[in-house]
């Protein structure tokens, strides 16, 4: 009966949006032929993103710079996105692939929610994202690595979670904070010195913006807040109120304080 409706075939459990578009040959193809990638192809890389748990939620922050080799490819890149009403996702690594991964991931979550009438559990979302990263392994082996960062809350349980990933799709839940990208080491070092699990949302935002400033201070590829051009990090919070983008004024104030301290 289903084959008469639209050319989609019969749904099977776990058949998500990605399988659907693959079955129609519209899907993303993440298996380039090794010879087809010319050596020295520089595609923009997205750099530092981080997520931090606080009392009642989680904050996610990303810098705005994308680099290609030693070149600044873009200054206004967005790396942090709401994934659905109660989770956010960020990317580091090959920017073009990462953006596509996020778009597909968001569509996947929404598709599931509409078909089933309920949202996936946070755990389910993280598992799915890990599988998506894993499916890009052939590209990662050719140097096009995408590593996402995922965070959110489980609205019914009122718990917040941060998940980090590795290039082959390993999934790790972090107790306090997580970071990905070239400046992540520096950002984590900074956060380790200031982090406290009882911090409130404002403190969490200040800490995470300061961590980006610290990362930018050491890592060439990370773009810190740019007061002259008026470019500030993207900041999203996820709490019982859902995903919210932080007011730019608050971000600017946090950035100014962080830059002042490091001067």
């Amino acid at each position, binding site marked *: 009966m289903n084959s008469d*409706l639209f050319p989609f075939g019969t749904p099977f459990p776990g058949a998500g949006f990605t399988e659907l578009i693959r079955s129609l040959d519209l899907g993303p193809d993440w298996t380039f032929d090794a010879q087809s990638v010319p050596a020295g192809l520089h595609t923009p890389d997205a750099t530092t993103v981080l997520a931090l748990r606080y009392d009642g939620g989680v904050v996610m922050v990303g810098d705005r710079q994308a680099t290609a080799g030693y070149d600044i490819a873009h200054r206004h890149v967005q790396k942090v996105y709401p994934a659905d009403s109660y989770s956010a996702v960020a990317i580091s690594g090959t920017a073009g692939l990462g953006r596509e991964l996020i778009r597909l991931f968001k569509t996947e979550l929404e598709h599931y929610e509409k078909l089933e009438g309920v949202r996936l559990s946070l755990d389910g979302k993280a598992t799915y994202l890990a599988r998506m990263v894993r499916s890009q392994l052939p590209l990662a082996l050719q140097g096009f690595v995408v590593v996402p960062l995922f965070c959110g809350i489980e609205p019914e349980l009122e718990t917040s979670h941060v998940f980090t990933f590795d290039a082959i799709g390993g999934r790790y839940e972090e107790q306090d904070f997580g970071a990905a990208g070239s400046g992540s080491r520096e950002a984590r070092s900074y956060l380790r010195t200031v982090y406290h699990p009882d911090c409130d949302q404002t403190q969490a935002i200040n800490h995470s913006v300061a961590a980006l400033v610290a990362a930018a201070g050491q890592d060439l590829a990370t773009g810190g807040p740019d007061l002259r051009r008026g470019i500030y990090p993207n900041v999203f919070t996820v709490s019982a109120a859902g995903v919210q983008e932080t007011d730019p004024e608050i971000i600017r104030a946090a950035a100014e304080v962080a830059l002042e301290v490091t001067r």
Partner: protein
Amino acid sequence: MTVPFYVAPEQLVKDRAEYARKGIARGRSIVAMEVREGVLLLAENPSRTLTKISEIYDRIAFAGVGKYNEFESLRVAGIRYADIKGYQYGRRDVTAKSLASAFSQTLGNIFVQGPKPFEVEVLVAEVGPTINEDRLFKVTYDGTLYDKRGYTAIGGQADELSEQLGERYQETPALDEALDMAAQAFRQVEERAISGWEAALLEREGPPRRFRRLSSDDLESIADGEEPSENGAGK
């Protein structure tokens, strides 16, 4: 060699239409109305989990009456259609018109070619930035596509409900007025207690995804028990 009986196309269509109408007549009806706050969909539905109204895309909702498995498969196909289109192009490129047209073609083909017609009617609603840009499409079992303004109804009592709403609907009402109006129309037509409501609103303003189910609190004003008895209809 056996020669198949000749059936005149008129007779074939008539038989199939009669069969489909009989199935649909057993289904409880659904009403859609343009209101100031968006587009309201209201269904009589005793079940809390098997829904008849559903989100399709940012500004688009679906409602179906008739055989559950048949309108459910149309709903799933609709969500797939919308998500694929939005993923391939952009979110604004997904419109109720193209979706309703896809339903129309599908139902039309099944009506003529399938072993039996679908015993369903579906409704595709889209909320626009202003009331003039709202869209209400109704698709019947044979694939006929109707473009409605202001209000419409599907299901066994669709014509009677439309008539009742037509008497009441003048200027675009507010949500609570529309709920009252629709509930009264239901009671007038059905002449019995309503077994349960299912309702959703496509909100005119807000975040990209505008579909919101109305909770039992939202529907308290039309819940059975405090229903106005001035209708005088025996129940």
